[in-house]
């Protein structure tokens, strides 16, 4: 049986981490929480839940946390990894949808897209940022995607071994597409659901993140 591991990067997520772990647990064989320099009780809460917790001493950003998470998952024998945010806006049930194309060998990397199916109440500003991100992803990497800023992805062993992340912050979401292009990784999108809360919206990206992301990606390109 294949080993599916969930990697959850978390920075100051004491309000949601326990609920996220409990909802994800039935869907995977192992959960790895990357506590990215949190100043609150995120690490202690995750440990109390009995999952693998890797503590970054400093807050290095989403990209660095994902990089560490993929590395650890591989070392622990993961066949498939699903990465998802710790702010509770993703649905754990979507992990099965993410894993299906990987387990069937149809692709190496799966992006969960919030925009493939209707029904997700996504704030207008988020839609706009994502659309700009999609256009930039196409312009910089020649890849058309409906959700360049997705917070849930799946990887098989080939993708995990091939991808070499360099961006340590939020721009990692777009960097995955650069790696897809460079490493000839087979990829596809699957529809996922999302629930925005006041909490998750306060943790997300803003306009200045976008400008910084663009500058960093242009340099990385």
């Amino acid at each position, binding site marked *: 049986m294949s080993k599916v591991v969930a990697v959850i990067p978390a920075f100051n997520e004491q309000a949601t981490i326990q609920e996220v772990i409990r909802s994800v647990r039935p869907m995977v064989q192992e959960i790895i929480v990357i506590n990215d320099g949190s100043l609150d009780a995120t690490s202690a809460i995750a440990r109390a839940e009995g999952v693998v917790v890797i503590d970054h001493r400093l807050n*290095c950003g989403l990209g660095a946390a994902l990089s560490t998470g993929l*590395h650890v998952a591989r070392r622990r024998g993961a066949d498939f990894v699903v990465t998802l945010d710790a702010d509770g806006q993703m649905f754990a049930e979507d992990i099965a949808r993410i894993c299906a194309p990987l387990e069937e060998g149809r692709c190496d990397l799966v992006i969960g897209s919030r925009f493939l199916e209707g029904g997700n109440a996504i704030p207008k500003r988020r839609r706009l940022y994502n659309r700009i991100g999609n256009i930039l992803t196409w312009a910089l990497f020649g890849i058309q995607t409906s959700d360049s800023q997705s917070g849930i992805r799946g990887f098989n062993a080939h993708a995990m071994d091939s991808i070499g992340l360099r961006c340590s912050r939020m721009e990692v979401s777009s960097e995955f597409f650069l790696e897809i292009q460079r490493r000839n990784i087979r990829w596809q999108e699957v529809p996922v659901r999302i629930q925005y809360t006041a909490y998750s919206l306060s943790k997300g990206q803003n306009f200045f993140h976008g400008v910084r992301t663009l500058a960093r990606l242009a340099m990385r390109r």
Partner: protein
Amino acid sequence: MIFKLIALPIIGVILIAGVRRARRLDRSILARGIWLLVWGSAAVLILYPEITTRVASWVGIGRGSDLVFYIAIIVLTAVVLSLLVWVDNLDERISKLVGQHAIEEYERTSRDATRRGHHPDV
């Protein structure tokens, strides 16, 4: 005249110190050339400020001071961008180090827990 007496020695010191530092750090010929060009041009323009007016009218800017202002903006933008790249590289290296340290620390703790007979992940 006072400005020239103050500025030229300062530029001279910057030039010499820069060249010596570039030689010590084994910088490329291009990097040394850019350093010499920027500070050498500054010295020449301080000695002969009328050059800026001539060049400005040739390129259609108007006043020489405007030309200097525009060039300064371009140079400062290039400096900021190179600093951004430098900081970004530093950020990447620190992140890698923090990640490696976290993994090593976890594996050490797991080994210790196993030796004590505890399950490593609980």
